[in-house]
């Protein structure tokens, strides 16, 4: 199993959710984060105090079977790519096991 984390523009969330649903995963977790990559923030100013803002991003996170990883990545890229800086990043990391609390099922069965 792998955990796929995508850090994206807030406005791309809907398209991403649909893309993932189509691949067949209903379990999805979303969180509000801030960040910057190549795309830098804008200078903010409050009564003379200046700071560089971080940008609001959405982190969407889905744990999938190993064999679905590349399918999901492709689906995500297609759904949200605009070609502009700020499109986002995807990180894939290993997951040892998963548990469905309700039933106690373990492993890939717990995912779907």
């Amino acid at each position, binding site marked *: 199993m792998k955990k796929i984390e995508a850090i994206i523009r*807030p*406005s791309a969330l*809907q398209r991403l959710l649909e893309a993932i649903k189509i691949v067949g995963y209903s379990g999805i977790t979303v969180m509000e984060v801030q960040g910057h990559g190549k795309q830098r*923030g804008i200078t*903010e*100013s409050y009564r003379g105090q200046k700071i560089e803002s971080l940008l*609001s991003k959405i982190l969407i996170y889905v744990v999938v079977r190993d064999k679905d990883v590349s399918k999901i990545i492709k689906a995500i890229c297609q759904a949200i790519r605009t070609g502009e800086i*700020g499109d986002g990043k995807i990180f894939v990391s290993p997951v040892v096991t998963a548990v469905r609390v309700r039933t106690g099922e373990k492993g890939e069965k717990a995912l779907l």
Partner: protein
Amino acid sequence: MKFFNSKSNYLKWIWNISYSVIGLLILLPNTSFAQTTSGASSTISSGDTAWVLVSAALVMLMTPALGLFYGGMVRQKNVLSTILQSFFLLAAISVQWVIIGYSLAFSPGNDFIGGLSWAFLRGAGVPNPSAPTIPGLAFVMFQCMFAAITPALISGSFAERIQFKGFVFFSLLWTTLVYDPICHWVWGGGIFEKMGALDFAGGTVVHMSSGFSALVLALLLGSRIGYGKNPMIPHDLTLVLTGASLLWFGWFGFNAGSALGANALAANAFMTTNTAAAVAALTWCCLEALHKDKASSLGAASGAVAGLVAITPACGYVDIVGAILIGIVASLVCYNAILLKLRFKYDDSLDAFGIHGIGGTWGALATGLFATQWVNSHGNNGLFYGNPHQFLVQLKTVAATALYATVMTLILFWIVDKTVGMRVSAKEEEIGLDLSQHGEEAYRY
């Protein structure tokens, strides 16, 4: 990025403003207030004055309240720009009004516009003839707050995609060339008043003028990026409810204050205002319950505002039965107007047209239906009280207002768009207006 290079525009703007202010200051004799406190003070009623001053303060509160109402409905990244649009107009129009707006609207002129003779409030030390029992300046300030909120109402239609500079220029021009004249037509001795039109607290001049201009702007500016695909959903409904509550509160000043005295007519306007708001809120909730099985808080707030809009021109002419019927129909028509928007796919972001344009039109017409001299002997009877003529008069004012507001907004949009620019770039829109136009973020941990 484009928005980093606009210094020259700001400079020009500041220069223009300073120039005209200083110019006018030099021209004006400083005697503008000769004997404010003495004069014909014997006719001043302290009770009426107290009521109108309070009403002016209540109406003042409505403009930032509108900012909260609208601000809660936009996405988080645009909340400050939306609130600021209202707050800034309160400041900008307050200045425009005392310098030139009051004169254009109320000083003697022709049927279509007043003159400049009352610029800088010259002569406002004596009571205005239409409010003989209160100090002239109380009337000026009460009217000032009407002028401030009207362009702010429009901002519901172009929220989330307008340049701040363009917004400022447009709003100042619009107030001077659309609001001030129509105000003159209705209350300043102009054409509508001569026709015998009834508009107690501003159905045509406030709500229709802003509502139709809002529609035009929504069409000309185009939809927000992603409109119809991404959900564009209120980011904080507690703000919306707070704003709506303060609007309801302030509206007592707006409507009952328009009696320009603390008397039975004010009490009647107070009652009809509250009743119509309440009935309309209930009706909207019922419609929602029918349509989608759940009444919502946004619906209750929207209904209340629709009812308040619709009763505005009628509040001092109709009785409780009129108020109830006006409230019910207000929600019926506004609810459906908003659904129309979804069908025709234009992006009136916060339904400024759907509520103020449609609600204001209904209110102006309804005044011609339900007005009765039982309530206000200085008013007139409406169709249902045997006077079809009044309804015709109302129809004419409705048509004229819609036409004038539409045409002028087309022209003004074109001018401002070509000079200062109206719409933000796609990147600025994506980042949000708070950051791109004001260099600020609303919330922070």
